[in-house]
């Protein structure tokens, strides 16, 4: 298999983590909006979502850091 395709597939697998992080953020924003519309436990929703969303973004960030770090620092020509 060509290196190029391998890189693309790796990139797609990495993007899954970002899809997860973004969709969870989206989900939590949606829940906070619903909570504020219904005036039902807004503060709890906001604080919990801030906590959870940060964790997912950090995790996705760490994984991307490794991905790009490994590719940038690879030996030339390989």
């Amino acid at each position, binding site marked *: *298999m060509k290196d190029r*395709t391998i890189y693309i*597939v790796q990139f797609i697998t990495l993007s899954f983590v970002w899809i997860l992080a973004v969709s969870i953020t989206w989900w939590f924003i949606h829940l906070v909006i619903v909570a504020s519309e219904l005036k039902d436990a807004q503060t709890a929703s906001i604080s919990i979502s801030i906590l959870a969303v940060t964790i997912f973004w950090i995790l996705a960030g760490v994984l991307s850091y490794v991905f790009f770090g490994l590719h940038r620092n690879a030996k030339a020509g390989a």
Partner: protein
Amino acid sequence: MKKFLILIVTVIGFAAGIYTMRGAIDKHYEFTQPIDFSHYVHASKYKIPCIACHQHVLFGARAGIPNIEICGACHSTPMKKTPGEEQVFGYVKSHKQIPWYSIYYVPDYVYFSHLRHVVIGKLDCKLCHGDMAAFTSPPITQFLKIRMSNCIDCHQKRHASTDCWQCHR
């Protein structure tokens, strides 16, 4: 490798497809009403108001489909010779109810009251049922699809209650 790519693309495509199709899956009506009833003739030509036949609208939850008692009130003597009227006579004479198909229905866990919407809320029938007076044959699909999002949209627009228990039971 190609297999893997194809797999991913199909999975994503499938998910997207389901998501977009979610609302589009509708009940298809494949039947013809027993009589080729023309709302146009009744409501537009002879200017009969809706509630003259759909009488239950004023009194309760269900609108009810008018049947031989109401039809027979006018069609006891022949007015015009059309095949449709012949059929009505047939039903009226033999005291048989006309087997209309109901198109608009709500699930049993929803309380939809015509009284509340038409009498208290003073809504126009056209809002949900469309301009029935223009129809020359009986409708076969819902004009406003009966879906919770449609209810909620309208309730929010008109500042009606969106409290769950007002409609769910």
